C-alpha cells in the first residue's frame, strides 16, 4: 500500500507574463525516490521552488499528506518537512559540521540562551553515523570534500525532520565513489520513509536509483511512470516533443576539411577533470562539445584559453604552442565563458568599457585609450549584433540576458578571433536573442573563424555544429559528423556514456 505524501496539481506560474508552468502536476509517494527530468527551461526548478516556498504559484493546489498547503516563504516549507539540497551548497564554510547542521535550531540549555555544544556534537555525530559516514562533527566545512559537504547538507535537512528532500543535480560534482555513497544513503532514507525528488540529466543514475520518473516539457508534466516501465527512448521523446522552432533547424555548411587545422589539442590533461583529450578544428568549422554538466567540457575549453593550468599535453594554434592565457589571446583565441555575470562582464561598467577590455592595446594611441574610436567600435557591434540598449555608455547591468551575452561576444569579435569558444552561450537568453546568436555564430564561422561550442541544449548544438565530440567523464568517447547524427534523441543517448 503506497501513500502519496505530496500532490501538486494544475500548477501555473508566469514571470513577466511568460508562462513557465502550465497546469504542471507532480505526485510523490512515501519512501520513494522520484526522478524529475526535462531540458533546461522545462520548468523543473520552478516547480520545485514553488514546493519549497521560494516562489508562489499563480494557480493550482499543493497537498501534503492530504491537506492543502501554501508556503509564503522557504521557512514555511521547512516547517512542513520539505528541504532542498542545492547544487551550490548553502553551508557556511567557516563553521563546523555540527554548527552547520544545527544552524538556527541549536540545542539550548534550560535558560534558552547558551548552546549545548557537547549535545550538538553528539547529535550531529549520531545523524552522520546513521549514514555510515565517518565525518567528525567538529571539522570545519571548508576542509571537507564535495561529497562530504553534500552529506552534511543532507544531515542538516534530517536534523530539521525533513520528510521530503529535493536534490538538484546531486552528482554533478561528485567522484564515482562519492556517488556510490550518496546512493547508499538515498536507499537508507527511503527505508526510513523519507521521499526524495531527484533532479538530474543523468539517465544511468536515474535508472539505478529512482523508483519513478516524471518528465517535463514546456512547463507541463508529460509523463509519469515506474522506472521499470519506461525506456530511455520513451523518456527522451517525452522531454523533447516535436514542436521545434525553425531557427533551430540545422543548416548544412561546407567546410574544407583538407585545410590545415587552426586549433590542435593533443593528449590534453587537467588533473581531476580532463584525461587525454585530443582533437582539432579547421578554419570555418563549428565543433560542438556535447556532454553532461561536470563531464569536463568547461575545463577543456578553459585549458585551451590558458586560464586553467594544464597538467599534460599541448594546445597549438596555427602550429604554435600556447602555454598561457596571454599566449592564447595573442594567438587569436576568444572565450565567451560559462557564467556571463561573474566571468563575462563587469556589470557596473558601460557597454563600451566592457567591449574594449580584451582589446585595450588596440584602442590605445600614444599611451591613451581612444574613447572616440572605442565608441565607434561599440556602435558598430550594437548595430551588427542588434544589441538593444540606449548606447555605448549604458551600464550593462541594465540590459537583458540576451543583450548582455551579445556584449560578451562583441568583446571577442572585436579581435577578429581565429578560434572562438562559446561555453553555454544561450543560458538565460530568450528565444529571440537565441536564434540571433545562432545566426551570428554561423556567420562568424563562414568568415573563416574556427568555432567551438558547448551547450546543454542539444537542439541548439545540433542546429549549428558541423561536427560533434561526445565528452564523458573527462574523455572524448565519440567524434561524429553532424550529418551522421540522426536525432536529438541519439545525442541524448550518446552523452550518457
Amino acid at each position, binding site marked *: 500500500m503506497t501513500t502519496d505524501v505530496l500532490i501538486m496539481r494544475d500548477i501555473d506560474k508566469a514571470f513577466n507574463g511568460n508562462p513557465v508552468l502550465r497546469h504542471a502536476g507532480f505526485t510523490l509517494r512515501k519512501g520513494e525516490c522520484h526522478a524529475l527530468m526535462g531540458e533546461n527551461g522545462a520548468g523543473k526548478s520552478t516547480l520545485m521552488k514553488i514546493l519549497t516556498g521560494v516562489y508562489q504559484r499563480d494557480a493550482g493546489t499543493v497537498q501534503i499528506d492530504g491537506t492543502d498547503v501554501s508556503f509564503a516563504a522557504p521557512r514555511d516549507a521547512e516547517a512542513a518537512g520539505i528541504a532542498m539540497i542545492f547544487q551550490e551548497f548553502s553551508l557556511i564554510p567557516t563553521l563546523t559540521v555540527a554548527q552547520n547542521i544545527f544552524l538556527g535550531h541549536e540545542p539550548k540549555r534550560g535558560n534558552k540562551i547558551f548552546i549545548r555544544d557537547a549535545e550538538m556534537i553528539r547529535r550531529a555525530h549520531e545523524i552522520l553515523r546513521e549514514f555510515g559516514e565517518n565525518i567528525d562533527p567538529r571539522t570545519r566545512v571548508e576542509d571537507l570534500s564535495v561529497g562530504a559537504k553534500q552529506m552534511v547538507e543532507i544531515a542538516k535537512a534530517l536534523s530539521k525532520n525533513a520528510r521530503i528532500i529535493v536534490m538538484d543535480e546531486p552528482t554533478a560534482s561528485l567522484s564515482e565513489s562519492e556517488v556510490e555513497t550518496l546512493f547508499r544513503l538515498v536507499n537508507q532514507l527511503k527505508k526510513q520513509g523519507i521521499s526524495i525528488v531527484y533532479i538530474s540529466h543523468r539517465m544511468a543514475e536515474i535508472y539505478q536509483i529512482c523508483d519513478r520518473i516524471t518528465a517535463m516539457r514546456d512547463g507541463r508534466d508529460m509523463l509519469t511512470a515506474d522506472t521499470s516501465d519506461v525506456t530511455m527512448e520513451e523518456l527522451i521523446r517525452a522531454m523533447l516533443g516535436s514542436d521545434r522552432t525553425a531557427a533551430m533547424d540545422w543548416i548544412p555548411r561546407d567546410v574544407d576539411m583538407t585545410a590545415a587545422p587552426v586549433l590542435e589539442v593533443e593528449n590534453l590533461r587537467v588533473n581531476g577533470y580532463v584525461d587525454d583529450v585530443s582533437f582539432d578544428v579547421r578554419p570555418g568549422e563549428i565543433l560542438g562539445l556535447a556532454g553532461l554538466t561536470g563531464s569536463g567540457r568547461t575545463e577543456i575549453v578553459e585549458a585551451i584559453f590558458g586560464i586553467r593550468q594544464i597538467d599534460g599535453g599541448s594546445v597549438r594554434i596555427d602550429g604554435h604552442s600556447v602555454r598561457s592565457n596571454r599566449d592564447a589571446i595573442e594567438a587569436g583565441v576568444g572565450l565567451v565563458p560559462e557564467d556571463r555575470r561573474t566571468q563575462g562582464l563587469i556589470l557596473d561598467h558601460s557597454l563600451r568599457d566592457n567591449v574594449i577590455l580584451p582589446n585595450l592595446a588596440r584602442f590605445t594611441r600614444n599611451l591613451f585609450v581612444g574613447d572616440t574610436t572605442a565608441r565607434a567600435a561599440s556602435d558598430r557591434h550594437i548595430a551588427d549584433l542588434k544589441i538593444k540598449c540606449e548606447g555605448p555608455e549604458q551600464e550593462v547591468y541594465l540590459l537583458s540576458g540576451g543583450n548582455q551575452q551579445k556584449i560578451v561576444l562583441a568583446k571577442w569579435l572585436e579581435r577578429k578571433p581565429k578560434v572562438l569558444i562559446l561555453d553555454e552561450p544561450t*543560458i538565460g537568453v530568450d528565444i529571440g536573442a537565441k536564434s540571433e546568436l545562432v545566426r551570428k555564430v554561423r556567420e562568424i564561422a563562414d568568415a573563416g573563424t574556427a568555432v567551438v561550442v558547448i551547450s546543454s541544449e542539444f537542439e541548439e548544438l545540433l542546429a549549428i555544429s558541423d561536427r560533434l565530440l561526445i565528452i564523458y567523464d573527462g574523455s572524448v568517447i565519440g567524434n561524429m559528423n553532424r550529418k551522421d547524427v540522426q536525432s536529438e534523441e541519439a545525442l541524448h543517448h550518446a552523452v550518457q556514456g
Partner: protein
Amino acid sequence: MQSKADPMPQDRSFTFGRINWRENIVYICFAGVLLFFAITIGDKGFLTVSNLFNIARTTAMIAVISIAMTFIISSGELDLSVGSTAALAALVSALAIQAGYGFVGGVIAGLLCGVAVGLVNGFFVTALSIPSFLVTLGMMQLVRGIDMRITYTNPVPVRNETFDTVFGPGTIGVVPTLFLWAVAVAILGHVVLRYTPFGRQVLATGGNREAARYSGINTKRVKIICFLITGVGAALAGMLWTGMMGTARYNFGEGAELAAIAAVILGGTSLFGGKGTIIGTFVGALLIGTINNGLIIMGLDVSEQMMVAGAIIVLAVAFGKKPSR
C-alpha cells in the same frame, strides 16, 4: 531553470533636473561647506587669501595620499600602511640628506622606501592571497615601529636649500608649492586612471576580478602596481611633510590612512572597487581640510572638531550611497 527573462532594473538614483546628486555629492558638500563657513565666519578670517592657501597647504599631503589610495581602492583592495610609510620615507630621506647624499640621493632613498613597502604589500596580497586589509594593517604597525626605532623617535632636521625650495612651505608666485604638488599629482592620477589602458585595467580588476581575468588582464600585476602607487604616493607625502615642517618626525601621517579613505569614498569612489574618480578624491580631501580649518576658526576644540567632521563624513557617504539593486 535559468532566469527565464532577466529583469530590466531601472536606475533609481535620484536626479533633480539634470544633476545626479549621488554622483556629485562631494561637490555639493564642498560648495555647501564653503558657503556655510563664508557666511558664519567670513569676517573672522576664513575667506582671506592667506587662510585659503593655508587650507591648500595643509591639505596637500592627505590629498596626495588620497589620490594614490584611489587607485588601490578602485582595484578592490585597501592600503592602511600609507601613514607609516610616509613617516618612513620622511625619516630615511632626511637621514640620507644629513649623511651627505644630497637632495637627489635623499629623494631617491625616500621613494625607494615607498617602493619597498608597496612590493611587500603586493607580494602578500597577490602571491599568498591574504586580504589586503590584514596585510596592510600589519604593515602599518610594523613600519611605524621601524619609524620609531630608526632615530629612537628623535626628529631629523633637514637643512638643504633645494629640498626647502622643492618641498618647502614657500610659494611659487602666490600659490603654495605644496598645493602645486597636490595639483600635479591629481592631474597625473586623473589622466592615468581615466585615459590610459592601465587605468582601465585597475577599474576592471576592481569591478569584477574574474571577468577581468577572463578578458586577459593580469590582475595580480595590476594590484602590485597599485600597491607601488600607494607606497610611492605615501613616500612623496612624507617628504612634503618634512618640507612643510623643516624636520622629519616618526609620527608623520598618523591617522592619514583613515582621512585618505574618507576622502576617496566621499569623492565618489566605490569602497568595493570598480568605480574611481581622482577629481572627486581631490575635492574630498579639500573638503576634509576645509571642515577642519573652519571648525578651528569657529573656535571648536579638538573633541568637537572630531565629532562634527565625523558626522559630516557619515552623512555625506549615506547620501552618496548607491541604491541597492
